[in-house]
């Protein structure tokens, strides 16, 4: 094994461990009656918050590459993205099972009438679609260009997740806006190479 690959596997193991830690903590809380007086609400929000945090980390990979030039970072992007989708699936499962207890009428009414749930569900569907098309074989079959276009849908999923988070809070609360600000920075950094190119062009002309 090359030294580079060894480092890759070490990093990968660390990512696995870190991404499973919130779930392990949740299980510990469940076993120790630590879910507050409103366990359903606590679990739902806990899973949703971790889905957003890990999604943001996945969206930070490209900016890290742009700002540091460390190309190897891209090799971890899929894994982190899949963990984000994993927590979104848990979040929605907890909403359906624990919060609504399979009351499909109530769930449908929520999706249709409550904008923050509509937006959240749309974000969830996009992330599921991206997770399902994350296999290397599918990348090959679709062709790099088409696949890349498709997976730029993650920007939309991220923006909708941020809106979902802002909309569910009461009063003016700073926390979801901090998340939205970080997302804006992460997406904005992606414009840096394009701006550099434009500058070069302008200088050449």
């Amino acid at each position, binding site marked *: 094994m090359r030294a580079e690959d060894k480092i890759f596997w070490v990093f990968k193991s660390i990512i696995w461990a870190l991404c499973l830690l919130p779930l392990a903590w949740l299980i510990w809380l469940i076993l120790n009656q630590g879910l*507050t*007086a*409103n*366990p*359903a*609400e606590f679990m739902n929000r806990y899973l949703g918050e971790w889905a957003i945090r890990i999604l943001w980390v996945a969206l930070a990979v490209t900016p890290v590459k742009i700002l540091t030039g460390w190309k190897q970072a891209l090799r971890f992007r899929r894994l982190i993205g899949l963990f984000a989708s994993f927590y979104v699936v848990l979040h929605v499962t907890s909403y359906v*099972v*624990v*919060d*609504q*207890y399979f*009351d499909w009428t*109530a769930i449908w*009414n*929520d999706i249709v*009438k*409550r*904008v*923050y749930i509509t937006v959240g569900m749309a974000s969830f569907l996009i992330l599921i679609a991206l997770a399902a098309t994350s296999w290397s074989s599918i990348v090959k079959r679709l062709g790099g260009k088409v696949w890349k276009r498709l997976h730029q849908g993650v920007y939309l999923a991220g923006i909708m997740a941020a809106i979902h988070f802002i*909309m*569910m*809070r*009461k*009063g*003016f*609360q*700073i*926390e979801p806006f901090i998340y939205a600000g970080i997302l804006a920075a992460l997406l904005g950094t992606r414009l840096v190479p394009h701006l550099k190119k434009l500058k070069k062009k302008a200088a050449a002309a």
Partner: protein
Amino acid sequence: MLIRHSRASDVLSSEITPHSVLLNRREVLRAAAATGAIAGLSPFMLSNTAVAASQKLPNVIKTKWTEHALGKDDKLTPYDDVTSYNNFYEFGTGKGDPARNAHTLKPKPWTVVVDGHVEKPGHYDFDDLIRGHDLEERVYRFRCVEAWSMVIPWVGVPLVKIIKRLGATSNAKYVAFETLADIEQMPGQRFATLKWPYREGLRMDEAMNPLTLMAVGLYGKVIPNQNGAPIRLVTPWKYGFKSIKSIVRISFTEEMPPTSWNMSAPREYGFYSNVNPLVHHPRWSQAKERRLGGPTNIFGFTPKRPTLMFNGYEEEVANMYHGMDLKRNY
């Protein structure tokens, strides 16, 4: 050059009891002596607040509002849940924040300003406001606008008794309440979550309704800080945010007073905010609620249950809203 050397035996200025506290103690003693009740001293009169919370209230009268009267599906929510899961944004927006942070609140001494269209306006010490009234136990359902609920055994004085004693005049059409505004005691007020101080209000007939309670305790004990010490409103047929905590001002007004959540999001929170399963919050349904600590399903979680019209107090309050469009007056 004058240099002041301090010695260990010196009395620090901070150790000298402030004049106001001394006066207060004298008043307490005089009052106690006058009633010859030093032995049966009310816990409110003990000046140390940390000791006062969790202290048993004496002579609490049982009423017809008992746990039994509510029915078999309305069991008391455990004390630990009632006192650890709170919305009190003055101490943070997390549900556990008030229980963690409210120790900075000093509910003793406590003054309530009474003003507006009233015969006896003034600055009332907490004890003076409550003294002379029996403390009643009222077991009420409590329905939060966020679709969770509890059953709480409050201890307090019906607001109607206090209003009658203060002598509201015929110009008084509404009662407005204000929570303490003090960034030192309420660190959450550093954030503009809402416009401080927290404000609430009731129509005069709502304030005079026999259900409306000024609570000073729960579970037979002095009310903990996170639940709104030393005195809070309880209107069980309205969403929880109407039941304003840690009240420092009661004003009798002619106009409908501004209320905090209505100022923050007028489309979402109206002045009335009566519990109504048919009128939904724009962002979520109000048809059901989760009773905290209620019976669990096979997954070990409490499922939601239908919310009752006026939170089950239709008989006592529906007549006040006769002919009113409750969808428009949400």
